[in-house]
């Protein structure tokens, strides 16, 4: 509704109020998110090192150096590793969390006794910070003291599980711990989705002679689409922000095998005093996120209109 010139005061106020109410939030977001993104883009074209706009020359001054930070960035094998890891990590993390969450939700929805006990057990990891659960995982996965050692003391001496120490597999242990943290949350979202399905449809389908497998595959799971989409947004957001986990569990190692863009960005911006490169990596990351999220948001929001 738009205010008309001939509207009475109450109507005009009522037409204005929603925008007034929304505007502080919008102002905050525009300034603190989009403003800062512009800021970062600008910094990525400077030779900033220890602080923004403080370049090689020392004393607050900087030079605009075009795309040279981006050139440097893509010449670093380190960055390539971070990008590859991100693809592996995000892909597996989102797929496994969704699959596991869905399976647990379906199982938990079978009139399970003790659901009230099991559900919080699945959910609680989301409540914990990785600053320390990372250490617990690190120990558990450590071949000398963790799982491998335990299984070996049980008598299966040829058992090995040393992924966290292996350059080629370490990223999968990060996936494991990340899945541990968020799959319960995804489970809750799917469980809610399942409970929202009209069970008359199920009765009808059962009368049609659908097998249990077909019932889920053809009738129930397709109806969980909104839950899948919400889960996707949340998981994608968590995947991109994964930082503490890597720092606490592997420190980016062995070698640089578990480096992710978030840790890369942090390291160049804050510990290597190459803020320009850090900013350019952030810009690339944002562009990647945008490339994935914008079509998704567009499709989602348009549909609902």
């Amino acid at each position, binding site marked *: 509704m738009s205010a008309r010139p001939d509207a009475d005061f109450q109507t005009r106020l009522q037409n204005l109020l929603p925008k007034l109410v929304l505007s502080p939030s919008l102002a905050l977001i525009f300034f603190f998110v989009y403003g800062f993104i512009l800021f970062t883009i*600008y910094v990525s074209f400077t030779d900033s090192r220890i*602080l923004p*706009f403080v370049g090689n020359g020392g004393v607050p001054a900087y030079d605009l150096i075009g795309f040279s930070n981006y050139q440097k960035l893509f010449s670093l094998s380190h960055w390539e590793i971070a990008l590859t890891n991100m693809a592996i990590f995000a892909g597996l993390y989102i797929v496994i969390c969704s699959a596991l969450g869905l399976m647990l939700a379906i199982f938990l929805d079978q009139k399970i006794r003790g659901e009230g006990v099991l559900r919080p057990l699945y959910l609680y990891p989301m409540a914990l910070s990785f600053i320390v659960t990372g250490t617990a995982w690190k120990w558990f996965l450590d071949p000398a003291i963790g799982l491998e050692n335990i299984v070996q003391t049980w008598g299966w001496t040829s058992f090995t599980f040393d992924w966290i120490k292996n*350059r080629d597999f370490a990223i999968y242990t990060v996936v494991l711990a990340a899945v541990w943290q968020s799959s319960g949350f995804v489970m809750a979202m799917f469980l809610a989705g399942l409970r929202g399905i009209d069970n008359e449809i199920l009765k009808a389908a059962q009368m049609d002679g659908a097998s249990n497998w077909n019932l889920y595959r053809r009738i129930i799971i397709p109806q969980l689409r909104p839950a899948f989409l919400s889960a996707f947004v949340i998981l994608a957001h968590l995947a991109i922000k994964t930082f503490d986990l890597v720092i606490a569990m592997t420190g980016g190692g062995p070698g640089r095998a578990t480096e992710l863009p978030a840790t890369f960005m942090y390291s160049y911006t804050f510990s290597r005093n190459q803020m320009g490169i850090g900013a350019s990596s952030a810009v690339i990351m944002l562009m990647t996120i945008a490339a994935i999220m914008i079509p998704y948001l567009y499709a989602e929001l348009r549909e609902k209109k």
Partner: protein
Amino acid sequence: MRKLMKTTTSALAALAIAGSVAQAAEVEVLHWWTSGGEAAALNVLKGDLESQGIGWQDMPVAGGGGTEAMTVLRARVTSGDAPTAVQALGFDILDWGAQGALADLNEVAAQEGWDDVVPAALQAFAKYDGKWISAPVNVHSTNWVWANKAVLDANGIAVPETWEDFVAAVETLSAAGVTPIAHGGQAWQDATVFDAVAMSTGGPDFYKAAFIDMDEEALGSDTMKQAFDRMAFIRANVDDNFSGRDWNLATAMVINGEAGFQMMGDWAKGEFLNADKVPGQDFLCFRFPGTQDQVTFNADQFMMFDQGGVVSEEQAALASAILSPSFQSAFNVVKGSVPARTDVSDADFDACGKQGMKDLAAAAASGNLFGSMAHGHANPAGVKNAIYDVVTAHFNGEYDSETAVEELVDAVSIAQ
């Protein structure tokens, strides 16, 4: 946007005025010494200041060997609210000095004669443009080897003097079924070992050329390749499970007799003492073979942020307290490091401490005191981390020695 940038730069420019948020007669100290012994040691300093009527506002931020604290410092400086004093290492101090953000402590330094008692190699990190800008607290030396005496004795191993001795000792241990070298596979630990190995392999001139002058020729030399080969030997003699291990768990392996040696800085001593081990009896400390005359160091310092042109009374008091012989002794006895000034009595130090002080004085006198590359005292953070990348990739088998040398040259040139 424009306003924001203006704010950032003007915040820097206005540091002179803005730094004084910490209230009068109070110092705000940003540091990362939070574990029991360190914090207790720092508490000595706090007590000292409080006895002079100066309050201490504590701002501890641990993690990543000071990385988190440096991140927080950037935020504090940008917001125009820099702490009075900030714990810092090596090149970070010079970088901040270059910003003109630090106070000029020359007056205090002259009064107390810092120029005479602080080793020149260390002064290089405490002065910018001829001005004292920070107060050194201690000197850690990083080219130590820690050994379990019982394990060595049982296998008839004497303290190795040369790389060849060391190789023999390692092979003896290996044959005896003991893990020869306890090591934690984290980039900075790999680099700590590399520091010592490079020094031992190429000697002080090579070390200086490669790591301090960042000379491409030295970086790409055969000596460097040999250093990497030696790293490969060490890699072959650590247990399979080294990756990602905390350094103190590696130390625990030596303490428990599971391993023979560990290459680690002097802070490892705290772990031995904490486990009620006696230096000389239960464990040995000696310089990495082939570096007996050299000391690679890193030094913790407190840089003093400019508080409006003049050094405030509290800052002067803090700086002077930090460099007072009594604090230097008290602190370093607890911390495991040695005093930053060479004229402190070694009476309160244990055997390792005494040796450390002697080594430092000798190295300082003979020009054998070098900043540790692994601990950010040889080259700037960007270069250091670039070297980390290569060393750690090599140690984990990603590169062979030849590739590592090539990568090293490239990485250092990109990072400069």
